[in-house]
C-alpha cells in the first residue's frame, strides 16, 4: 500500500521543529548552488511539498542504509528495525514542512529514526519483551582493558569487500550493550557530535565519552584479529568474533 499518497507533508504533526533559521533562506541558497546536475536536497524538498511523491523517494533513498543501521543497532531485530525505519520515513514525510534546513535532511531523518527506535524499545521493555542480556552486561563504568594487541595498522582494502567482515561487524555490534551500541552508532556511524549524541539520548556528554570509549575498544578487540588474519589472507581461524 502506498501510505505516502494518503498523507500531506504540509500538515506535519508529532515532530518538533528543528533549529531556528527559517528554511526559505537556506533552501534558496542551496537551490542556487545546484542548478545543474542532480537536484539539490532543497529542490527535492520543495518538490515534495508541492506534492511530488517521487521526489521524496529520491530524497530518502540515499539515507535508507543508515536509517536501518540506526534502528537495527537500537532494536537488534531486523523486523522491528524495518518497522521503525519505515515509521521514521513516514514521520519525516508528514512533518517535512517543519524541517527548517539548518541541518542536512539526513541528519534530521536519523534523529527521527533514533527516536522512533528508542520509543519502540521502551514500549517493548514496558511489555517485558526485551532481551535481558542488555541488563546483565551493564557494568561499563569500570576501566575496560583491551584484550588483544594484534597490530592493526591499516584496513586491507580487499578486506572491506569481504562478506566475513560485514558479518563480523554486525556480530560485534550486536555484542555491545544497548547503551554502548546506541552511542557508538550515533557518534561513529551517523557522525553526530558528542553534544548532539548526549542530547538525543538525554545523557551527559561525559557519559557519551565513557560509553564511546568502551564501545570502540570492544569493537576493536572483536575485529582486530580478523583484520590481520582471515579477512585479508583467507584463513579462517579468526572467523569467530569474540564477545566483548
Amino acid at each position: 500500500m502506498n501510505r505516502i499518497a494518503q498523507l500531506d507533508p504540509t500538515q506535519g504533526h508529532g515532530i518538533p521543529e528543528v533549529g531556528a533559521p527559517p528554511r526559505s533562506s537556506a533552501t534558496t541558497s542551496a537551490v542556487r548552488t545546484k542548478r545543474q546536475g542532480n537536484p539539490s536536497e532543497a529542490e527535492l524538498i520543495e518538490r515534495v511539498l508541492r506534492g511530488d511523491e517521487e521526489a521524496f523517494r529520491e530524497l530518502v533513498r540515499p539515507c535508507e542504509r543508515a536509517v536501518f543501521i540506526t534502528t537495527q543497532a537500537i532494536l537488534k531485530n531486523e523486523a522491528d528495525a524495518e518497522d521503525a525505519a519505515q515509521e521514521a520515513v513516514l514521520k519525516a514525510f508528514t512533518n517535512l514542512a517543519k524541517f527548517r534546513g539548518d541541518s542536512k535532511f539526513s541528519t534530521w531523518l536519523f534523529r527521527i529514526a533514533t527516536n522512533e527506535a528508542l520509543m519502540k524499545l521502551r514500549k517493548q521493555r514496558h511489555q517485558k519483551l526485551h532481551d535481558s542480556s542488555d541488563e546483565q552486561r551493564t557494568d561499563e563504568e569500570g576501566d575496560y582493558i583491551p584484550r588483544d594487541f594484534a597490530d592493526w595498522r591499516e584496513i586491507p582494502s580487499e578486506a572491506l569487500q569481504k562478506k566475513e567482515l560485514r558479518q563480523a561487524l554486525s556480530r560485534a555490534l550486536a555484542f555491545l550493550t544497548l547503551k554502548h551500541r546506541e552511542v557508538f552508532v550515533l557518534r561513529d556511524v551517523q557522525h553526530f557530535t558528542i553534544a548532539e549524541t548526549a542530547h538525543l539520548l538525554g545523557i551527559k556528554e561525559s557519559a557519551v565519552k565513557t560509553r564511546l570509549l568502551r564501545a570502540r575498544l570492544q569493537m576493536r578487540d572483536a575485529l582486530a584479529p580478523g583484520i590481520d588474519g582471515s579477512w585479508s589472507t583467507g584463513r579462517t581461524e579468526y572467523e569467530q568474533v569474540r564477545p566483548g
Partner: protein
Amino acid sequence: MEISCEEVWREVSNYLEGEISGELRARMEEHFKGCKHCTAVLDGTRNVVQLVGDATVFELPAGFSNRFLSET
C-alpha cells in the same frame, strides 16, 4: 611525566576526538613511541572508527531496499 598504559587506554577515545589537553596529548604521543601495545590499541581503535564511518560496510536484510520505500 610518564603515563601508564592504563591511562592511555582510558583516554584513547578522547585522544581520537581531540578532546584532551595539549599536555596530555604530548604525553600520550611520547608513550606511543615506546609502547607497541598502546600503538596497536590506538591504530585499531582509529580503524574501527574509520571502518564504521562508511555505512556501506553494514549489511542490509535481503530485499530491504525494495520494501523500504514501496511500503511507505
